[in-house]
């Protein structure tokens, strides 16, 4: 290996290490979501969006409480209750069953802040409505 090749290898390795260090806890992670449809507003002006079978979003790790409004629909006669499981950084945080079409707000208490800027909240449902619609999630409140 020539000195020139060695230099290129060193530069590539340094760039890889720098990129990985940055991607460990990037500031833009707070804006990343998955599994959500577009926002909708109902006739009463309540904003919400459907999840698929699984959706996730991030909250600041300094937050103590997160309130997540949830709702589902019972448009068809065979639409059964929906069990919703919520985890924070893959640890169980809450589990509720939506048995009617009213809004239900769940209050999540976040563990003490850790070294990351953000915590990940995952919402999973045990069944979906037609068109892969899981639950409606309203505006999330963070305190």
């Amino acid at each position, binding site marked *: 290996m020539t000195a020139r090749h060695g230099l290129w290898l060193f530069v590539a390795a340094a760039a890889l290490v720098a990129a990985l260090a940055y991607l460990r806890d990037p500031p833009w992670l707070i804006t990343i979501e*998955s599994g959500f449809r577009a926002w909708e507003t109902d006739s009463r002006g309540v904003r919400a969006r459907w999840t698929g*079978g*699984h959706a*996730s979003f991030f909250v600041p790790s300094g937050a103590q409480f997160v309130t997540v409004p949830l709702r589902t629909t019972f448009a068809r006669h065979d639409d059964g209750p929906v069990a919703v499981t919520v985890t924070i*950084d893959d640890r169980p945080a809450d589990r509720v069953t939506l048995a009617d079409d009213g809004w239900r707000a769940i209050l999540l208490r976040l563990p003490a802040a850790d070294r990351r800027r953000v915590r990940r909240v995952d919402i999973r449902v*045990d069944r979906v409505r037609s*068109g892969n619609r899981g639950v409606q999630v309203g505006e999330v409140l963070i305190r």
Partner: protein
Amino acid sequence: MTPLSSGGRRSAAILILATMIAAAAYVFIYATGRADRPIRSDGFSYYVYLPAWFIYHDPTLAAVADDCCGGEFPPFTAIIRWPGTRRWVDAHPIGVAVMQTPFFLMAHALTRWSNLTPDGFTLYYQHAAGLAGLAWTVAGLWTMRALLRRHFTDRATAATLAALLFGTSLFHYATYDSSYSHAYSFFLIATLLDLTDRWHGRRSRTIAVLLGLVSGLIVLTRHTNLLFLLFVPLYAVANSGIRETVHALRERARELLLMAAVAALVIAPQLALYYQATGRVLVSSYGDLGFDFAHPHIIGVLVSVQKGLFFWSPLLVLAVAGFLRRSTMARNLLVPAAVVLTANTYVIASWWDWQFGASFGHRGFVDALPVFGVGLASTFEWASARRARTVAISIIVVLAVGMSVIHMIQYWNGVLPMSDLTWPRYRAVFLRFK
């Protein structure tokens, strides 16, 4: 065999530049919201095996269905419950997922490192799947370069690679719809041609094993592409004649058996998946959807305004003309190309949805572009012999490439519909970008 030109800098430079342009286009497409996330439509069902294998450790796909979709895959995924067993059968085979594996594993590691949801569908997985298609297209072009440079000048090679990428729908399937199977098949068919050319040049067990591996992957990626394997036995018929070719193949029966054994080994996991889901090894994974061989839409798939191959990629007319020339490489490919492309056209034209749904140009033919590439190189080399020919062919190529790029941007902008285009509609939006 030695390269006809020793440098090859021109074709290498073209490929490096083309890679940069394709990468920039990929960023542009997703940064401007021109396309939804990469794992979508057919791309979902090609990819879905990876989270099933590596995250949920459940090859039946049931665990992925539970997590992504509340237990039931939506209809767009083309993953159906098999009547009788009620198990999931994916219309699309595992080849694309196999070739996406290194990209997926990197994305999975990065996802865990960054604390994104490790479910197989968050940010890094999405772009790993998208960029995998781009990377395999580029790999396919490099393979084409190696093949073409053994038989054509570097100038003809460079022109062919650039024209193939920008003058057909290859660029679109390398960037916008890169999670579909076509980028992968493009690489595999290019490699099949390259290895076949090498194998007919000299005895080699290594090349035979590689040919078996590539043949298996070709079938795993798109079952109907089995037809392309005819290139291996038919390669030299045009030059040597049928009797001589049969004799030569008989002499190399052991290598052919080795090839077949490796290919069978590669295909075996797919058959095992079909068996666990349906109780049968060979199934029509599309369920009730299938072919109507009595009523093929030959005109539709070749020249129609809807999806006609030569309407959307007129450059390929030059490729067909190239096979009529007496260059060795094009001549070697004449018989298998005629047989395979004719049969492939008939199969594509007989599919129940002969337009292949939402697509730019006719995506069924993207897999065959390496074959057209040889014809194109032959034409370009012919044209380079005289200045008048060079000028004439250059004008045609610039116009064809220009129209293809304009059409592609129109498609990205939603000006051209995804299917069922009519001539009045085409005229109404001609050269319009909004």
